[in-house]
């Protein structure tokens, strides 16, 4: 499978005008790739993730083309996207754990979901049980209410549910954020296992936690203020980034082994621009230590080396 996004722009409609949440997004996710979509809050990663599968108001489709396995996805049309959702492209939304209906036993919820897609619950049950074993959940959870499960268990449950029909592309939105360290690791590894066993072909993992991405992602796409800043393989992004924002971001992350008294880390002064009326040119230039006059013009997202894309004039 492959996902190809070309020049995608999505805005949010608000009373005061359109918030330019995502612009000029062009990238590709290859078959079997786990791509991390990283950035801080407000950078547009959730917009991109949700827009690909569930473009609801106040989100507005402006322009762009999304192709999954060569077939164009009509993401602006909720009805026409129905056959793709859950079967070709699936989503684990943010706060999925609390998204389960508290008045339904999980088994009943799954059967209702499957029936709504025209898939028989009885036929899928053996496969479902196999997958529950894989994520170390006993079959009894199907008879439990969500409130009886712990956070980690709910997250694993949602993961199994979202991938039950073997979608080509899975979009996982902050699935490790609210979890304990040990569960986080288990869930992240589970994601890799799902990919390795072919339950999903490729994954877009949206998170702000770069260290999780270092552990399991094949490539990382860094976003800033609605624009793609850099995309490369994980090693390259973490060890030798080229975009000034990526460099500053990586160097501001504390590590076990780094002490304040020995090496004081620095953050990035200032804050991201308001996207209601974003600045012209490069959106990072106000906080960028190496900005110069050319930055008044928006830099294109260009492949500098094989599979390494950067949007920065300084690097061209």
């Amino acid at each position, binding site marked *: 499978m492959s996902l190809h996004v070309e020049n995608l722009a999505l805005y949010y409609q608000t009373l005061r005008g359109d918030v330019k949440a995502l612009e000029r997004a062009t990238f590709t996710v290859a078959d079997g790739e786990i791509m991390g979509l990283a950035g801080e809050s407000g950078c547009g990663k959730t917009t991109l993730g949700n827009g690909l599968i569930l473009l609801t108001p106040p989100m507005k489709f402006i322009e762009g083309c999304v192709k999954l396995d060569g077939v164009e996805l009509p993401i602006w049309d909720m009805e026409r996207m129905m056959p793709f959702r859950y079967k070709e492209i699936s989503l684990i939304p943010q706060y999925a754990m609390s998204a389960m209906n508290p008045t339904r036993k999980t088994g009943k919820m799954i059967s209702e979901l499957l029936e709504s897609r025209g898939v028989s619950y009885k036929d899928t049950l053996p496969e479902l049980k196999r997958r529950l074993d894989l994520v170390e959940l006993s079959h009894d959870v199907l008879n439990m209410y969500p409130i009886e499960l712990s956070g980690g268990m709910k997250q694993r449950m949602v993961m199994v549910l979202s991938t039950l029909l073997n979608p080509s592309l899975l979009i996982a939105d902050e699935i490790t954020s609210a979890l304990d*360290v040990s569960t986080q690791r288990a869930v992240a590894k589970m994601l890799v296992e799902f990919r390795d066993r072919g339950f999903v072909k490729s994954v877009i993992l949206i998170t702000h936690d770069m260290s999780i991405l*270092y552990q399991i992602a094949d490539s990382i796409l860094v976003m800033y203020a609605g624009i793609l800043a850099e995309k490369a393989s994980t090693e390259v992004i973490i060890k030798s980034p080229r975009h000034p924002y990526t460099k500053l971001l*990586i160097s501001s992350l504390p590590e076990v082994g780094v002490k304040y008294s020995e090496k004081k880390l620095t953050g990035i002064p200032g804050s991201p621009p308001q996207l209601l009326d974003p600045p012209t040119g490069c959106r990072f230039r106000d906080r960028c230590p190496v900005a110069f006059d050319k930055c008044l013009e928006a830099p294109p997202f260009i492949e500098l080396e094989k599979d390494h894309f950067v949007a920065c004039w300084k690097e061209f």
Partner: protein
Amino acid sequence: MLKLDNISKVYKVGTFGGKELQAVSNVSFDINKGEVVSLIGESGSGKSTIGKMILRLTSISSGAIMVDGVDISTLKKGELRGYYRKVQGVFQDPFSSYNPIFKADRVFSILRDELFPEVNGSEWQDRVNKSLEAVGLNPDIVLNKYPHQLSGGQLQRLLIARALLLDINLLVADELISMLDASTRIDVLNLLADLKSRGLSVLFITHDLSLGYYISEKAVILYRGCVAEMGATEKLFGNPLHPYTKMLLNSVPRLDKKWEAEAVELETEAQAKQSEFTGGCVYYGRCPIADKELGCDRCRPALLEVDCDHFVACFRYGDGFGGVATP
């Protein structure tokens, strides 16, 4: 300066309060002047409860908390004001910490009305400005704004500035930066570390080990309300002894090395349902080196000093004696 002596907190749960939930069990540690101590634990470890007990937002079920030699549970309502001039807290969600219908700097005026009514207008304004500058904020930018007009980082700094106005001795920072963006986190963290030089002690409550390592001299690792291991940060992280600490360090995602291939022991459904322990070490169900011979399932190990400034609560260390049998 702050001493926790055998603190416990029990909640009554269930219909008519029949069952008990032991949120904190026999925790003891202390914080010296100008020291940053990290209280590290995952959800359910009781770390926030300890913070709330120190701030007297929750009652203490048993044990004593001594601040400068005074048992704070003996303080009456009237004396609490004096206590809050010495001890303050900052919480996790910056947007929940402000009343959304009022301006952000109302937190300062509340402080003045309650604790400094005698200070006149312009002098108070001076103090506020000095506090703001001490935390790296520009008074012209942050004053007179509503909370939703400021960023999370600014709001948290504003809260630290508020605490500084009181010339406090101890700041309880409960997951202070976990809701902030990566690029602002480190600045707020650095700010806390800088304040140490003013003689401020900080109890840094977090679930993130790398943050704990970065900023603190001592660390206390909590699991299900009990102290698993505690001591100087380098000793703790350089040579972890308790199996839980080892598991934490292995599971934390790092930027310099990948996870090892071995599986991690996860909480089962049975353990998730359990809300009380019948005795025995709290980590017994998940412990890879548990041993019935040593009594891991019957007694709770006491916290023993196995090395200078390094304490562990595990029967594998300390010669197997010192276990505390629980009723």
